[in-house]
């Protein structure tokens, strides 16, 4: 995995943008979306009024209190709201900056629009509408996302993916998509525009990050309800405290009430909640995954089953020839020569690997000049060459070769049949070779399993995710590779509908399924899956069907996406715990402070030995405000996920954020009190 180069977390221009935004966000209509911080804003307003009233009265009324003190409390509460707004604004700014850097590539570029009459007119990318066609030749920047309808080209996609090696895109098939901002290196293509300007996935993602269109995800809604519940509890606590205090003959100033309330309600998580959600999408974007909704990221953390294509994910793209097996009565060198002859014109990686495997001494001087090439087709399932001397060389799947051989009245050698079985059982693919309808041997092709992939599957298993390998191989081969790679299950000889059926079956058991795909025939399965990641190189249909698009076209990206989802939920959970656990210490700071003057016995509850009631309340409020910016880095980076099992993870997080949440404010408030009391 290759992340964009990380700069420092707090970049100056982002901070500046966020600072201004945090003031704009004070608008109550915006604040209303966040019930916890909205109540703090109300508290701030109340303190402003109290400050003014107390100043007018000259600090005579015990309920209104000292105007200077009130003003300080007012400022601190305002700061609390601003800090929370800043967290959200900063997360937005970061997400936008990330998206902008991707969008920069698609600034207005000249486009060669193909008119209906076949003429080409020069225009600009912004004027291209959905359905328009344009032409790109070597050296052109592709002006818009689209699908190649004609031609083939090598394209430099490094602007988007950072990968320097050019990729081939061609009309038809599953690699027909091009992205605006990438550069055509060779050849000429005609591309049809697939999105309206301003409606590309990237545009949608930016809108999601910007807040206007950001919808709360299901877990975020549930958590907001929980936090609202806790807020109401503390409304009850603070409102009833007034008659309680009256009964105990203890006057409590409004400033103290508001401070107590703001300290108790879960402002820490309330202030950071939306920042955490935005940061989740942002982390996905940093991994070069465009998410179409925040919900998709959240769902990714819940995934139970992962469908992975064998090729490219588990094995290195292509199979390689590893051995030649001649039958009795055929010399190995002859088999090698025939194999090489049939493969010299074969541009497939398998074909090339056969030539590579053969030793040069044997193949020296071989030539296919004047020969007729027989291309591989889906019907014949063989390929080969007809030599000028009339020799017919064919190679292909063993059952097809067997048919050809037997139709010509020749026997399929037993030892070869045996060898074929042996190869399959070892995870290889046998490729039979026949010359003039007689079997001359079999070539063993082997999958190369990606280094390190076993560890990743191990990690997934510890996360509770079941991995399923999807392959067109026969069950024997599939089983071998599945075992070797350490996946939990496999679908062999898979047809597109098999994926769909597997997903449905898993979902019927209540499991959430993720898959990655690129082809048009993957689209239904991508839509059916709970998390469908389409490769950017894939067809438009696939990209529309999935809920994420991977710009890197990296099939192992799913694993990252799952971890990003888990991190998102964990960050919310741990900060909620931390926030609520903080209240214990705040109680021990504020409650004695409220009552000490009239009930000196309650000094026993002042276990932090804070200097004075005023400094105790101030310290708690200061701690409460400054813990928000202190936790912004954690909210943005996310709590580290460790696949150590759910119970162990809970233990760990409970210890760090639960117990830590109880202890940290005791220390923090005490320290702040020491500083504050030096000034007061």
């Amino acid at each position, binding site marked *: 995995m290759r992340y964009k180069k990380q700069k420092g977390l707090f970049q100056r221009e982002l901070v500046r943008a966020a600072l201004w935004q945090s003031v704009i966000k004070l608008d109550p209509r915006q604040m209303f979306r966040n019930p916890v911080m909205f109540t703090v804003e109300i508290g701030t307003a109340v303190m402003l009024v109290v400050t003014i009233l107390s100043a007018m009265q000259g600090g005579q009324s015990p309920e209104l209190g000292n105007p200077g003190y009130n003003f300080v409390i007012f400022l601190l509460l305002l700061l609390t709201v601003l800090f929370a707004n800043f967290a959200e604004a900063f997360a937005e700014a970061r997400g936008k900056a990330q998206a902008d850097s991707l969008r920069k590539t698609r600034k207005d570029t000249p486009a060669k629009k193909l008119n209906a009459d076949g003429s080409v007119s020069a225009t600009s990318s912004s004027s291209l509408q959905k359905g328009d066609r344009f032409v790109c030749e070597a050296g052109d920047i592709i002006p818009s996302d689209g699908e190649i309808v004609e031609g083939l080209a090598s394209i430099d996609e490094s602007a988007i993916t950072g990968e320097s090696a050019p990729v081939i895109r061609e009309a038809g098939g599953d690699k027909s998509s091009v992205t605006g901002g990438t550069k055509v290196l060779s050849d000429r293509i005609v591309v049809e525009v697939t999105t309206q300007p301003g409606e590309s996935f990237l545009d949608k993602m930016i809108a999601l990050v910007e807040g206007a269109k950001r919808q709360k995800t299901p877990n975020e809604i549930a958590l907001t309800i929980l936090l609202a519940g806790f807020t109401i509890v503390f409304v009850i606590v603070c409102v009833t405290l007034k008659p309680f205090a009256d009964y105990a003959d203890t006057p409590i100033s409004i400033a103290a009430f508001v401070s107590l309330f703001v300290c108790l309600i879960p402002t820490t998580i309330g202030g950071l909640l939306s920042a955490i959600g935005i940061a989740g999408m942002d982390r996905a974007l940093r991994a070069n995954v465009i998410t179409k909704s925040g919900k998709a990221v959240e769902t990714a953390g819940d995934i139970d089953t992962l469908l992975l294509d064998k090729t490219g994910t588990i094995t290195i793209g292509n199979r390689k020839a590893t051995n030649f097996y001649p039958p009795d009565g055929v010399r190995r060198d002859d088999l090698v020569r025939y194999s090489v002859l049939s493969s010299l014109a074969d541009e497939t990686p398998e074909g090339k690997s056969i030539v590579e495997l053969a030793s040069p001494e044997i193949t020296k001087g071989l030539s296919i000049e004047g020969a007729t090439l027989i291309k591989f087709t889906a019907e014949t399932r063989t390929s080969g060459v007809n030599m000028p001397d009339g020799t017919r060389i064919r190679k292909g799947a063993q059952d097809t070769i067997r048919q050809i051989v037997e139709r010509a009245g020749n026997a399929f050698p037993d030892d070869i049949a045996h060898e074929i079985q042996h190869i399959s059982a070892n995870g290889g693919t046998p490729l039979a070779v026949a010359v003039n309808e007689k079997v001359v041997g079999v070539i063993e092709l082997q999958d190369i399993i990606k280094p390190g992939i076993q560890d990743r599957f191990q990690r997934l298993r510890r996360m509770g995710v079941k991995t399923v390998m999807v392959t067109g191989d026969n069950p024997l081969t599939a089983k071998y590779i599945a075992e070797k790679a350490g996946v939990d299950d496999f679908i062999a000889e898979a047809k597109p509908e098999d994926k769909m059926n597997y997903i449905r079956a898993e979902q019927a058991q209540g499991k959430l399924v993720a898959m990655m795909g690129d082809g048009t025939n993957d689209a239904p399965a991508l839509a059916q899956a709970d998390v469908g990641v389409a490769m950017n190189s894939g067809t438009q249909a696939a990209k529309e069907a999935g809920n994420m698009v991977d710009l890197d076209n990296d099939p192992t990206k799913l694993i990252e996406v799952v971890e990003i989802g888990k991190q998102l939920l964990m960050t919310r*959970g*741990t900060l909620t715990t931390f926030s609520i656990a903080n209240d214990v210490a705040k109680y021990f700071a504020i409650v004695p402070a409220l009552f000490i003057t009239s009930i000196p016995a309650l000094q026993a509850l002042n276990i932090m030995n804070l200097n004075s009631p005023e400094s105790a309340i101030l310290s708690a409020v200061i701690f409460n405000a400054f813990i928000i910016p202190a936790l912004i880095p954690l909210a943005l980076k996310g709590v580290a996920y460790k696949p150590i099992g759910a119970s162990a993870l809970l233990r760990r997080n*409970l210890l760090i954020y639960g117990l830590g949440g109880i202890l940290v404010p005791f220390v923090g408030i005490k320290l702040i009190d020491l500083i504050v009391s030096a000034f007061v």
Partner: protein
Amino acid sequence: MNTELSGVLAIFLIAVLLAIPLGRYIARVYLGERTLLDPILGPVENLFFRLSRIDNSREMTWQEHLKALLSINLVWFLFTMFILMNMAWLPLNPDGNPSMTPDLAFNTSISFVVNCNLQHYSGETGLSYLGQLSLMFQQFVSAGTGMAAAAIVFNTLRARQTTGLGNFWDYFAKSTTRILLPVAFIGALVLIFRGSPMTFEGKDTMITLQGDTVQVSSGPAAGMIAIKQAGTNGGGYYGVNSAHPLENPDYLTNMIENILILLIPIAMVFALGFYLKRRKLAWMVMGVMTLGYLLLLAPTVYFEMNGNPAISQMGVSEPTGSMEGKEIRHGAAASALWAISTTVTSNGSVNAMHDSTMPLSGMHEMLGMMVNSFYGGVGVGFLNFYIFIIIAVFISGLMVGRTPEFMGKKVEAREVKIAMFTALLSPLLIMGGTALAAWMMVHYPSLPWLNNPGFHGFSEMLYEYTSSNANNGSGFEGLGDNNPFWNISTGIVLILGRFIPIIGPVAIAGLLAGKKYIPESAGTLKTDTLTFGIMVFSVIFIVTALCYFPALALGPLAEYFSM
């Protein structure tokens, strides 16, 4: 000293040991398996079901369950009210006691229907035997209601997706006749042998040592005492409840009654494990509840046995502990055990004066009722605990990076909403009620409510609302509560504090049961582990502390630190 402590230990251990087989039996009952009593009670039940045209095998949705539960409770309320208002002319009134006034009958009926049993009358003079019997009947059916509600929730926890959750009438009838009736019957027998009366004859006469002739109230007491304990009702036959020598004659009956208080609440926890065949889950629940119980019990026993420091300061030694308001035959330790047992289980019967316990003991009694799920009332204790589980599951699910699940069902916004609403209710009623009373005291200082002003008076008011909300029914006393303000305000708290904590958990459980069942995977947070138990306990601890700390600081804590 040691004898007293070993008595405490014995009571608790016997209760737990008896609860295990009883839990197995309760699970059998709710699973619909045959029990010993079926041949006798089955035909009677079927006759009643047929007469009332109830098909007791029809599967009900959670909404239908609640409808049935609430409507039958309304019927009982009207029925009891009728009897209490007409006792004077109805049969079984050998002492010639009068009918109740409408407001007192209202209060009493509500209070018995909701399994609380606040008693603003004295049984000896306020009720005829028919009145006593009708209240005794209430003690069975209100306990049966709570247990039936728990049975519904048990049913929802099975591994499947369904809306059919058993039949309320079946659960209710079985809870009452197969579980409460035999347990109470055995308990009553023991009490009769130890001297509690069980007769329909009128007052007895006895001549005291001084030669005076004294009229002693008698009647069908033993049966009522047994069910008041077994059904966590607490409504005594006599005015002073289990401090009365005929209601609780000796140390042995004290042990038995205390065991009965704890027995079914603990057995319900084991029943959960047997019912779902998930014993580890039951042990997790049991562990959390027991930890909470012991944390309240240990300091209370300590404070009571240590005596009152105010008396010690006067140079008076207290070798038997703080004995003010306690019965010599029970002693300080057993009274402390009872005080905690009766408050954590929503029972509310008393064998000593809670008003006279030490300040922190009083706080622990209140905490037991505020949590109301360290065992809790029969059936409803588990329902309250279920709410805490849902909140704990939600927070800890997020903490391990997964949408929260409990028993294979995803906990989402709707469930969290109901859980928070239910959890919010207790602080609202307790603190709201107390605030109202405190406001009245400030603005109308002449009100003759409080015998003890200051912190202790505050505790008395706080205790009253806490007890009402928990449907406990015990009082701190010392509070002039037999007047319209307290009758009405606590009456409202009683109804809300009873039915919303039943409706909430049943609704959540019903919603969850209707969701797709997700089999466990390695990423699922297991809920039957020590770790999760600690999580649930932390949630209970933090939520309770956050809600009540300021109030407790002004009441018992202030009193304690001022002593």
